[in-house]
């Protein structure tokens, strides 16, 4: 994605539909950040295709004035991949809940990493299944019991950033739903990243999750004798996750190890920012190498009929082996 000067105002990227989230929900901020990102990157709204899963978060596609598809629970990455592959000129953004993406969608999450398409995936991580009334999502820690749970969570929480690293995501970031500026900049970086980008957003759900609330994230914490904000910027911690030379195996290994260590570390502070980034060829690049028609055009624009709608494909080379 090559960005250009803004043409549309963020308010124009906002649709006419009024979000129906609970007051204080982190989703509002994420939506603003998405709208602002599209505007500030100078994207034409009709060249942005925004896919969401199903959940409170899933409704977000209706709130942006771009092509939107509010898909099926857990399948958002599959839909998005299909669109991106057939029309790679589109800026494809996928988004959805943590249940959607890391729960029922975990299989696609894994394989989207393998494919490394040039897409952005924004996950609304609220540790609960919001729209179905607060059951544990896969990111909720074992033993945790937000108010909506009858019993403490019997399953371990997964670490989505570690998973993304293991699965081959080439851009891995975390941001926070009430840090508008950081969130917007992170999403913009993700969109500009030419490969599969994960942005995990810490998203308070005031209705069901009383553990990780806005207040929780606004608290200060005591670490090494100092009083620090809960949320820490990776840059401020002297962390740089960007691989400069993807061919430098040493650097890659080191940056991967650093990322894994960092996302696993049990810090009192919660770090946000870009944990890992590397530039690698995408799946579409591999397709282009193999399919001659894609040299000059995109799959969706490959011609197959003339002006009279007569098919123009010559079956010659395909039918040859069958002729008698």
């Amino acid at each position, binding site marked *: 994605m090559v960005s250009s000067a803004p043409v549309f105002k963020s308010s124009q990227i906002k649709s006419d539909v009024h979000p129906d989230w609970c007051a204080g929900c982190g989703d509002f901020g994420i939506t603003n950040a998405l709208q602002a990102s599209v505007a500030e990157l100078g994207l034409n709204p*009709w060249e942005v295709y925004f896919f969401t899963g199903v959940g409170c978060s899933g409704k977000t596609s209706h709130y942006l004035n771009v092509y939107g598809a509010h898909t099926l629970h857990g399948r958002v990455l*599959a839909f998005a991949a299909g*669109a991106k*592959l057939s*029309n790679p000129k589109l800026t494809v953004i996928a988004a959805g809940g943590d249940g959607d993406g890391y729960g029922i969608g975990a299989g696609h999450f*894994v394989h989207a990493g393998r494919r490394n398409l040039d897409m952005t995936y924004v996950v609304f991580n609220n540790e609960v299944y919001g729209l179905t009334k607060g059951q544990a999502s896969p990111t909720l820690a074992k033993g945790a019991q937000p108010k909506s749970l009858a019993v403490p969570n019997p399953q371990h929480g997964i670490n989505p950033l570690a998973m993304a690293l293991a699965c081959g995501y080439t851009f891995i970031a975390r941001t926070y739903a009430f840090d508008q500026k950081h969130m917007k900049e992170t999403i913009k970086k993700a969109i500009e990243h030419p490969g599969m980008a994960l942005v995990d957003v810490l998203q308070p759900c005031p209705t069901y999750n009383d553990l990780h609330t806005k207040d929780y994230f606004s608290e200060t914490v005591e670490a090494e004798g100092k009083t620090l904000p809960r949320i820490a910027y990776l840059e401020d911690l002297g962390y740089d996750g960007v691989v400069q030379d993807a061919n430098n195996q040493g650097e890659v290994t080191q940056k991967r190890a650093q990322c894994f260590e960092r996302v696993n570390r049990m810090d009192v502070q919660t770090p946000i920012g870009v944990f890992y980034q590397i530039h690698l060829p995408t799946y579409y690049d591999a397709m282009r190498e193999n399919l001659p028609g894609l040299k000059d055009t995109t799959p969706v624009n490959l011609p197959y009929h003339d002006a009279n709608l007569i098919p123009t494909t010559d079956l010659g080379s395909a039918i040859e082996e*069958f*002729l*008698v």
Partner: protein
Amino acid sequence: MSPVTTKNSQENKSQSEASSSKGCKDFCWMIGGPQGTGVDSSATLFARAAATAGYWIYGRREYHSNIKGKHSYFQVRVKPDPVLSHIDPVHLLAAFEHTTADYHAFEVVPDGALIYDPQATDPATLQNLAPGVLKFPIEFDAILEAVGKEFDKTATQLSILKNAIAVAASCALCGIEFSAIEEALGMLFTGKKAKLVPLNVAACKKSYDAIQKLPGFSDYRYKLVPVEKQKANSRVLINGNQSTALAKLKAGCRMQTYYSITPAVDECIFLEEHPEYSTVVVQCEDELAAVNMAIGAATTGIRASTSTSGPGFCLMAEGLGFAGINEIPVVVFNYMRGGPSTGLPTRQEQGDLLFSIHTGHGDFPKILMTPGDVTEEFEDSFNAFNDAERYQTPVIILSDRSIANNTMCVPRFSEDGLKIDRGDIVGAPENYNEADPQSGLQIFPRFRIKENTPISTRAVAGTPGRIHWLTGDESTEIGHITEDPKIRIPMHEKRMKKLELASREIPQARQYSFHGPKDATVTMVSWGSTKGAILEAMGILKTEHQLDVNFLQIRMPHPFPTAYVQPILEKAKLLINVENNYSAQMAQLIQMRTGIAIPHHILKWSGRPMSQTEMVSAILDIVNHKTEKVVLSYGL
């Protein structure tokens, strides 16, 4: 191992009485062997040689869900005129190892022949071999050694040539000239493999000569009747996976997603192996991804499809509903195989009809086509992409293992008259002006409810000035979620009305075929790959039993062509339903759509296709004894 059926094929050979003084007009050759030892390619070679010589072919493949070692076999039926199905009696069995000779001996007609390897098989031990069968021992190893010497290889290195040897001996016996084998070899081994031709020719030559010197050679009754060569390249020797792939290329399908499964994967691999058409073929992580990726792709305007079989089709149910409610053209191919569950993964069945029609929760429109052979597979597959875009809804091509894997020799598919129909689709609005980006920001009522048609005008993602939304929820005309009954009611109705439109518009000839005389003693009803056996049985019944039979073939089970079909059924004197499944699903569907209960059934759920032989007997059984249900079971 003995046949499942109690009747031995030798008893009913009369119906395929093929040998006359002029030569044999209906010939069945069979070869078998452990999987992975080239049985398939030997059958291809034989079929090609016969076709090259001018004959017509039907090749039936039977194999296990196994990579190497289990017994597989291939039957090639050869006729001087077009052939549509297989028959049970075997006129010539070629067995380069013992199992094949042993398993299939019972199928050889009493005056047929066995080609065997005397090092592997003592024909005297073959209890089920009729005494009159001519036995031709071919010294496979000796030939290999001789060829090895010529080409400086060991016999073991060349063991794959046993196939060619068996084929050549067979050709000699049934009267296919050697040049046809040579020509066929030249066409099968091309590119890097071309260097294998001389080796093969040498082995074939030795075998072709050897058999001619064997006692009994000239006694063989089933020498093929001579034919003229056909016009070169006027025909294709092809299976359904392949004809589907060709149709997809022709139709402009440039996005194929898949997750490997028998018997669909060969179609996908074929597309992958033809990068020159630039079709994006994506091997997905599962069928959930496959269907939804195809749907996502289709929303950008590309023609997209996915191919699978039962287990994978199960995983597509939810995605189809999404395509239904969002009016997205996507074409899904379900090649049925033996079910339920993993079932008989490499065997024939037609068990998914009712599931395919009713797949997905809630009501949404889908169009379901059931081609009956490789040619209809080509036609329906081509048309499916038009129908999907015209009716903006998923189209399912329900085909099966037999069509997918069995080879037919048919006239080259007609490409004249094919036309692309993209349906009601628009690009950027007239008032869009590239120089004024603001004009691109217009909202488009993609799901507009119109007065006179249930078809809303479609635009695809990426079009300036046509912004709209998709959602799995019920939606407004621009695609936003709604739970308002005032919108829900007409929106749901609009979608469902497309079925009525499709029923009206789709040419009758694509909805059903009526074969045979208008009035007949017996009316057959069926769908899909049973077509060939029924059509050929009709011929036999007419000529040998003076029985007039006609045949209603349902080609579009959904929306069902009630108006056309009901009068035919009502008029029928003796109605017989034929299906390769247990529960007579088409008969159930027919009763659902017409109220008519078909009284007689010919069913088979052994995982094997129906033969012309079985079909003739079964029809006679019903005609003579008013049998309610004839259950077929022939075939290993």
